[in-house]
């Protein structure tokens, strides 16, 4: 009896210690940072402070290409205007949740989702656009023509027309990629079946198997697919053209795929926001400056182990990830056009209050 009690007590003590360690220890679940954030709780809402000042601000980015805009800032653990920043990679499914529960002071989100949550929560402004389209139509079929550089409207129309009576497998079922492609095909009355490919890995497997010969993939997956297909004996893989180029040619507007959103209480400090925008723009410029820089940041992101980016792939496709910063007020028309297509109830564009305006 004593032995049993001793074993059970030991087990419960271990459990209690484990629970205590789990409850207290945040460091084990965070990616490496070059310096620790200062002591104030970074998830504390700035609403509690009437002036809106915090010592540490959280900056979230979803896994994948959108996080590359912040890569330099993450690598340097850059402070902004004297404030420490806590940079985190989250899952794509967590973006809405992070905005709803107000965890993120800054967050990179798909434009449509970010605008919707900004309106729903009335807690965020759109600060600017960071990604101008990383979606590409790819194929293993030699019969398709690639989209010309600096395509005109006629070029884009002819490009889409070749998919008539064909099938394109798309990522993002009923989300930005899928709905954007369907919109453009509908605009040109091209009768093409957009099959739901579920995710990039499934589409890659289908391309290898030959059950699909045309797909819509995002970078860096579109570039990674080339090596994967070559390894499996498929050597005629090509990137035909950028969805954002087709969008621009047909609508006359740019394709603001992802943007940075800021909590309204944080945006009250305009000097801080200006400094953040400047740091973000510099981070993106550094990423775009050369393949070596892109590889350096890609390798850093790979080392974090909280995202799926690979340095060698990022190096090859960094320009195709289309990272560039423009303020939301300057990109308003582009944003409204895209959001109007993806979220029909916002087609009237009556949400100017979502766009951050420096006073």
């Amino acid at each position, binding site marked *: *009896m004593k*032995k*049993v009690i001793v*074993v*059970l007590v030991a*087990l419960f003590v271990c*459990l209690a210690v*484990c*629970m205590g*360690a*789990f409850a207290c220890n945040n460091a*084990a*679940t*965070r*990616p490496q940072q070059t310096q620790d954030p200062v002591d104030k709780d970074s*998830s504390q809402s700035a609403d509690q402070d009437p002036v809106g000042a915090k010592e540490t601000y959280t900056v979230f980015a979803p*896994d994948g290409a959108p996080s590359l805009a912040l890569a330099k800032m993450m690598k340097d653990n850059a402070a902004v205007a004297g404030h420490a920043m806590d940079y*985190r*990679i*989250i*899952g*794509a*499914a*967590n973006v*809405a*949740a992070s905005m*709803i*529960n107000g*965890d993120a002071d800054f967050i990179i989100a798909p434009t449509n989702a970010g605008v919707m949550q900004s309106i729903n929560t009335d807690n965020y402004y759109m600060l600017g656009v960071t990604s101008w389209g990383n979606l590409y139509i790819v194929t293993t079929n030699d019969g398709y023509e690639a989209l010309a550089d600096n395509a005109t409207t006629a070029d884009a129309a002819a490009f889409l027309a070749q998919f008539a009576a064909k099938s394109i497998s798309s990522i993002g079922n009923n989300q930005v990629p899928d709905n954007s492609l369907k919109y453009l095909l509908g605009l040109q009355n091209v009768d093409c079946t957009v099959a739901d490919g579920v995710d*990039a*890995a499934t589409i*890659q*497997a289908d391309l*290898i198997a030959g059950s699909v010969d045309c797909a819509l993939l995002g970078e860096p*997956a579109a570039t*990674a697919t080339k*090596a*994967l297909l070559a*390894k*499996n004996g498929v050597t005629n893989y090509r990137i035909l053209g950028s969805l954002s180029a087709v969008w621009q040619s047909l609508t006359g507007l740019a394709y603001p795929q992802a943007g940075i959103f800021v909590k309204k209480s944080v945006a009250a400090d305009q000097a801080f926001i200006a400094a953040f925008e400047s740091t973000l723009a510099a981070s993106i410029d550094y990423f775009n400056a050369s393949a070596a820089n892109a590889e350096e940041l890609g390798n850093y992101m790979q080392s974090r*182990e*909280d*995202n*799926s980016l*690979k340095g060698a792939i990022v190096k090859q496709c960094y320009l195709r990830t289309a990272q560039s910063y423009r303020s939301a007020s300057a990109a308003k028309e582009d944003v409204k056009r895209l959001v109007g297509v993806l979220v029909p109830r916002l087609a009237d564009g009556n949400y100017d209050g979502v766009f951050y305006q420096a006073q």
Partner: protein
Amino acid sequence: MTASSTKRNKAARIAGYIWRRHGGTLLALAAIALFLGAWELVAVGLKKEYMLPRFSAVCVAFGRLWGTPSFYRDTFATLLRAICGFAIAFFAGAAMGVAGGVFSKFRAFCKPLVAFFRAAPTMGLTLVIMVWLRAKYTPVCIGFLMVFPVIYTTVADSIATAPRDLLQMAKVYRMPLSKQIRYIYVPHAVPMMFSACSTAFALNIKATVSAEILAHTVGSIGVHMTNAAADLLDGTAMLFAWLLVAVLLSVLAECLLKLIERLCLRRYGNAIV
């Protein structure tokens, strides 16, 4: 009898002894070997590493894991989340199970709640809970929701089905409640509890890792699986390696519970005269 026939008889007796004592283990090992052999053959025949990597490639990837610091940190973090979820569910389930076993009205009251927890799709609940809680607490909550109905039902059932004749005898001899609990209820409940805990912990680990994948909980087995799955070029073997890690965690936990069960049953087997 010749020397060779004596030796043969001795070998046969030894083999028979080993088979009687460890036949189950040998059969299990044979099944594992057969499964792994079939896996390797199919992988070699399929020649599609991105779909089914060879077992040898998975072993190499598994070996590489042990050299990375994040492996220990993140595996421990996942185990901690699983244990937290299990512990909270165990205490809550046991407490409510006692109430449910003693008071039939309470049990009837809890029935819809338990049925909901049991039937609700785990992934759907994860999506909802991600909004309520942070990504690092979502797996703990999902683990709790997976284990709670099992523990509650087991405890409530074990109390409700305690041997009536012994309880009547305890009443006749005016046995104190503490002794009734110690000598009647606990020995009746312990075997059922251990069986339930063993099943529940395995389910708990599965649910915790699944929730980590969906919630993208940083510093977890789930995130490593997500990242490996995104890389069909080199990542499939690593994905299988992480799967193996999750399975081993489950198996180790089950072995530990079996050991504790054996110790308890050895003692409680003599509790009822």
